[in-house]
């Protein structure tokens, strides 16, 4: 990698003719797929939170463990965390460079997975945990 720093050739000139990496558009496409899913799921999520806002513990428990609400929450969590992982990677690749970029992209993946796992675990425990 370091040797390319000496070159006056542009980045495009260096890669032209090497062929595609076969996954060039996958992030673009997945970002839009999850965005499409997120529109109804985010609206459902807001509605669920509004419904839970007024009540206490028992009401919130009954709401989250009802099958439709639990399913909508799980889908929202999975779609949103995947969407945010791709989105944050774009931001990182715009502003962070070199070794820090690699570390940031890895940390980004770990954070998204941690958020997804914690939220999914909580919904499943509420649904099946015999609380």
């Amino acid at each position, binding site marked *: 990698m370091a040797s390319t720093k000496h070159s006056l050739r542009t980045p495009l000139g260096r890669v032209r003719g090497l062929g595609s990496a076969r996954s060039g558009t996958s992030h673009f496409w997945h970002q*839009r797929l999850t965005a499409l899913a997120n529109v109804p799921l*985010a609206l459902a999520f807001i509605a669920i939170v509004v419904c839970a806002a007024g009540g206490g513990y028992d009401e919130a428990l009954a709401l989250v463990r009802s099958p439709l609400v639990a399913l909508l929450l799980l889908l929202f969590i999975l779609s949103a965390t995947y969407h945010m992982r791709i989105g944050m990677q774009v931001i990182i690749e715009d502003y962070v460079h070199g070794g820090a970029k690699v570390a940031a992209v890895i940390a980004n993946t770990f954070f998204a997975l941690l*958020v997804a796992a914690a939220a999914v675990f909580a919904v499943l425990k509420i649904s099946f945990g015999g609380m």
Partner: protein
Amino acid sequence: MAEAKAPGTRPEDIRPLSPHLQIYRWTWTMAMSVAHRVTGAALYVGTLLLVAWLLALASGPAAFETAQWLFGSFLGRLILFGYTWALLHHMFGGIRHFIWDVGLGFDAPARQNLARMTLIASAALTLLVWVIGYAVS
């Protein structure tokens, strides 16, 4: 042999850069583009609120009461209000991108109107959600 300079400091590495945000007069499309990224980054952190609320609910009544007290405090409500707006603004910004994805809305008046509608719609729907929220609770 000459001492090698650190990469990025040699004359051949320093290429002219195009001007960035602070050079240009702010436009609606530019502001909404920045807002889309900022709200996206805010929502990234905001998922921790959802995780905290769900884990509190999964942990039992005491943890849940603490979470409800935090979210119900003035600062908590302010953060949740901001989260609601960020989520809805990012959603409408995404719909704007979908309109562009199908090849529509690229002329100057349409770009301008879409950018304005993104902000108006997100502000209006955020207020509506909170009015309903206070009405039902």
